[in-house]
C-alpha cells in the first residue's frame, strides 16, 4: 500500500516535471509548426540550390563552384560595401529619429493623438509606392527636392542625385528613413508605456533629474525592446531590395547595388538562382553572426537588470 502510494506520488512528480518541460513547447508549437512547414522546408531547398548551376530550365551539380566564383566576384565585394553603407545609414537615422519621436509622443501635449496618427502613416504606405513617391520627389522635372537643394546651394544645378554614382544611395536611404521611423517610434512607445509609473514617481522623489530618469529608468527598461528591434530592423534592411530596386534599380552603373538587389538580379536577370542562393547563404551567415552578437549583448543587459 505505502509502496504503491509512493509510486503514485513519484509518478505524479514525474508527470509534473514532464508537464513543466513540455509547457514552453506547448506555447511555442503553433509558431514552430507554421515556420517549419512554410519556411524551413523551402529554405533548405533554397540552400540546396547553391550547389547547382542554373539556367532557366536546366540545372547541373556544381559542388562548391558557386562559392568559388563568389570569392572572386568584384561585384560582390562592391555590393557588400554598399549593403553595409545602406544598412548602417538607414538604421542609425531611423533609430535615433524614432526614439526621439517615441519620447515626444510619450509626453502630453495639445493634439498629441492627431500627431501620433499622422507621424505613423509612412509605415502604412506600401514600400513599392514609397519608392515611387520618393523617386518623384527627386525628379528634377516634377519634384521639389532638386530645386530645394539647388536653392540651398547644396547642388550646383537642379538635377537628381539618383543619377549621381557618388550620391545616389542617399535617395533610397532617405526614403527608407522616412518609412522606418514609425517602426521604432511605435515599438519604443509601446515599451515605454509598459514601464510602471511608480518607478518614475520613486525616482523623482529621490530627486533624479530628467536626464537621470532617462538613463536610469527609461533606457534599461527599453533595452530589451531596443536590442530586438535594432536587430530585426538591421536584418530587414540588409535583405530589403524593393526601395532600391524601384528608385535606382541598383544603378547608376551599380553604385546602389546591394547584396539583396544583386540576388534579385542573379535570380531573374542572369537566371542563375544557384549563384543567387550562394550569395544569399553568405548574407544569411553574416546576419546570423551579427544577430548572435546582439542576442549575447541583450542577455547580458537582461542579467544586469
Amino acid at each position: 500500500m505505502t509502496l504503491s502510494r509512493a509510486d503514485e506520488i513519484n509518478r505524479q512528480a514525474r508527470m509534473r516535471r514532464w508537464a513543466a518541460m513540455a509547457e514552453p513547447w506547448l506555447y511555442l508549437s503553433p509558431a514552430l509548426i507554421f515556420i517549419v512547414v512554410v519556411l524551413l522546408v523551402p529554405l533548405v531547398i533554397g540552400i540546396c540550390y547553391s550547389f547547382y548551376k542554373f539556367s532557366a530550365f536546366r540545372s547541373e551539380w556544381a559542388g562548391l563552384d558557386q562559392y568559388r566564383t563568389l570569392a572572386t566576384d568584384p561585384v560582390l565585394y562592391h555590393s557588400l560595401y554598399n549593403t553595409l553603407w545602406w544598412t548602417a545609414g538607414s538604421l542609425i537615422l531611423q533609430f535615433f529619429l524614432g526614439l526621439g519621436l517615441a519620447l515626444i509622443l510619450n509626453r502630453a501635449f495639445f493634439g498629441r493623438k492627431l500627431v501620433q496618427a499622422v507621424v505613423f502613416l509612412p509605415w502604412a504606405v506600401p514600400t513599392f509606392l514609397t519608392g515611387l513617391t520618393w523617386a518623384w520627389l527627386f525628379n528634377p522635372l516634377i519634384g521639389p527636392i532638386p530645386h530645394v537643394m539647388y536653392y540651398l546651394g547644396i547642388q550646383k544645378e537642379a538635377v537628381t542625385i539618383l543619377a549621381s554614382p557618388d550620391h545616389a544611395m542617399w535617395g533610397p536611404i532617405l526614403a527608407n528613413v522616412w518609412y522606418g521611423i514609425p517602426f521604432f517610434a511605435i515599438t519604443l512607445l509601446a515599451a515605454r508605456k509598459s514601464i510602471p509609473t511608480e518607478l518614475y514617481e520613486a525616482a523623482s522623489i529621490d530627486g533624479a533629474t530628467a536626464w537621470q530618469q532617462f538613463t536610469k529608468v527609461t533606457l534599461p527598461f527599453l533595452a530589451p525592446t531596443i536590442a530586438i528591434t535594432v536587430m530585426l530592423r538591421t536584418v530587414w534592411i540588409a535583405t530589403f531590395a524593393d526601395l532600391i530596386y524601384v528608385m535606382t534599380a541598383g544603378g547608376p552603373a551599380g553604385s546602389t547595388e546591394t547584396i539583396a538587389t544583386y540576388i534579385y538580379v542573379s535570380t531573374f536577370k542572369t537566371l542563375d538562382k544557384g549563384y543567387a542562393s550562394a550569395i544569399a547563404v553568405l548574407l544569411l551567415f553574416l546576419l546570423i553572426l551579427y544577430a548572435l552578437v546582439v542576442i549575447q549583448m541583450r542577455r547580458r543587459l537582461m542579467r544586469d537588470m
Partner: protein
Amino acid sequence: MVGKSAARRIIEGVGLYGAVALYVAFALFPIYWTVKISVTPQKLLYSEGIKLWPSRMTLENYSSVLAASDFPRYFLNSVVVSISTSLIVTVIASLAGYALSRFQFRGKVGVSLLLLLTQTFPLVMVIPPIFRIMGQLGLTDNLYGLIIIYTAFNIAFATFLMQSFFDGVPKDLEEAAMIDGCSRFVALRRIILPLTLPGMGATVAFVFTAAWSELLFALMLINSESQKTFSVGLLTFIGKFAVDWGQMMAASVLALIPVCLFFGFLQRYLVTGLTAGAVKG
C-alpha cells in the same frame, strides 16, 4: 527662481512643438505630394511641374478607380488577408513570445535562431520552392495561400516583439498571482496580457501593414483578377507605354484609408497605456 523655470518651460514648449512640427512635416510631405498628383489633371501633370497645388483639380482619377476598375475588389481582398493574418499572427506570437520570455528550457537559443533564420533570407530565394509546394497543395491563386505565407513570415518578428514586451513586464506580478493559487495560464490571461495590450496592439498594427503592402508573393502566387490584392493592382498602372500616375496615386491614397481607420482603432492600445492603471489598481 520662478521666472527662470517659467522661461525654461517656454523654451521646452517651443522645442517640443518645433520638433513635433518637423516630424509632422517630414511624415506628411510625400503623402501630400501623392494626394496632389492624384487630383492633378493628366494634362497639367508635367506642364506645371513643381507647383505646390495644381491650378485646376479633378476627382476624375478617383471616380475611375472606384467605378471603372477592379480596385474595390482588390481592396476587399487586401482587407480580408491583412485582418486574418494580423489576428492569427498576434495570437500565435503572444503564446510563443510568452514562452521565450518566461521559461528557461533547453533549445531556447535554438528556437530564437530558427525564428531569426526566417528573417535573414531574401524572399526571392524561397519563392521557387514555395511556389511549387503551394501549387501542389492547391493554394496558389487564392487568398488562403497568401494568409498562410504571410502568417509564417510575420510570426518570427511578432514573436520577438511580444517577447520583448513580456520581458518588460516585471516577473513578480505573475509570480504573486501564481502563489495566490492561479494557474500559469490564468495568470497570463488576467495579469500579463492586459499589461502587454499596447504591445499586442503594436504587433497587430505591424502585421496588418506588412500584409497590406506585401507585393512579391501576391504578385507571384495570384493570377486571377478576382484574387488580386491591391498592391498587385497598383502595378498594373505601370504599363510599357505609359504610367497612369493620376489613377495610381488615387488608388494609393484610397489604400491609405483602411490603414488609417485601422490605426485609429488601435490608437487606444498604443496611446493610453493601460499598464499604468493596471499596475496602480
